[in-house]
């Protein structure tokens, strides 16, 4: 199903400046794979050895996927996936 993925400023050099991508997938993992297919430069920036890097946070409709099923988290119709740096706050 169609999903909007929000790309943070730090990664926009790899998307040609695009802040939002429209891809499809039924889980966060599938959605990210689709994103990497469109913009290969993002894969190594976001993941390492198949897992998310330790300072990358991913949210589905505002909810951190680590409170859900991680990369296996299901995507509902109209959901928004947001990628953000984890190094803010405190």
């Amino acid at each position, binding site marked *: 199903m169609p999903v909007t993925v929000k790309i*943070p*400023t*730090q*990664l926009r*050099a790899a998307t040609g400046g695009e802040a939002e991508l429209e891809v499809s997938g039924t889980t966060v993992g599938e959605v990210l794979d689709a994103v990497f297919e469109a913009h290969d430069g993002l894969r*190594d*920036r*976001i993941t*390492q050895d198949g897992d998310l*890097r*330790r*300072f*990358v*946070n991913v*949210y589905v409709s*505002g909810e*951190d996927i*680590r*409170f859900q099923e991680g990369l296996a988290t299901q995507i509902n119709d109209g959901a928004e996936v*947001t990628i*953000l*740096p*984890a*190094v*803010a*706050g*405190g």
Partner: protein
Amino acid sequence: MAIENLKCKECGATYDLGAHFACENCFGPLEVAYDHSQLDPAETKRKIQAGSQGIWRYADFLPFEGRPGDPLEPGLTPLLRADRLAERLGLDAELWIKNDAANPTHSFKDRVVAVAVAKAQELGFDTVACASTGNLANAVAAHAAAAGLKSYVFVPANLEEQKLLATGIYGTNLVGVRGNYDDVNRLCTQLAETRPWAFVNVNLRPYYAEGSKTLAYETAEQLGWELPDRVVCPIASGSLFTKVGRGFQEWLDLGLVEGQLPVFNGAQAEGCSPVATAFAEGWDVCKPQRPETIAKSLAIGDPADGPYAVEHARRTNGAIDSVSDAEIRDGISLLAETTGIFTETAGGVTIGVLKKLAERGEINAGERVVVYITGEGLKTLDATRDRFRMHEIDPALASFEAEFRQEVTV
């Protein structure tokens, strides 16, 4: 001068000294890199001693060319011997309390905000902002007011009333978000992408975090240019914990002090203990938690510097412990009754962990221990209700004597 660039702590990539906080290659945190090789230790020491009565005496170790104009200079807070507390804990140690509630807005956050607001002005921002658990909100609102900047302060809407009052009074835009701190932090990370504002702990975080090093410098200077053997320090994001370590390390590297890094003991509340859990489990990442604790100033479920705090505790042969809400309340009372210092819940966490270390026999005879008290008890009054009873009497001698049933001796 010696400020070089911003450097990624993960992959080492470098960036210019602008408003950036995360690496474009790996999302790692950026940190200010310095070259102190031109500093002469003896001359640096003299310069510090002749400096201002606050954090800017350490300007050579902060990310500025010279001393910025800071009308609300924090720092040089008291370092006090706590012999009665040591005795109550059965410790034969040299115990010190660094009382950082004695800052302009009554917490250590004045240090980091003074640095961030000065950097915001240098970079040309006219508005500062933050995501806060309360103390930071107080500090950003106050320092923005003092500097004549606009401010937006985002907090969880259910924060302690005292912390809301001590923020709004400065004329800031106080925004209560219906969510926990991690929700507030996510929102601010998103806002920082579109608003032309200096979020002190988002896009200015590399500079902001440097302010915490001044706690280490002051400790060493107040101990007569010596290091403690051990420090006990609260952990929320983990930034203070790791930056105090960096401060000591910089002075060791420069030869301003001798010896080795102290043992670092971190303190968290059981109801929000992602860093203590990662330490106990041997993880190199922190699994986020949903905070449920009275120590709201430490209630960060997804701590940005958590992995570094774990590494730092391990490297110094330290540990990270957590205590219950009941132990937090007991810790507040214990500190107040033995030192005359009234701390907020975060201080109760720190004293609770100190007590645990004492009970486990981890603190050796003669050890010099510094405990960081980072905030003020008047900001978390709910935590201290029902700890004592007031004696209410009529304005008559008989009423007093009846209440206390004192024997009259002549």
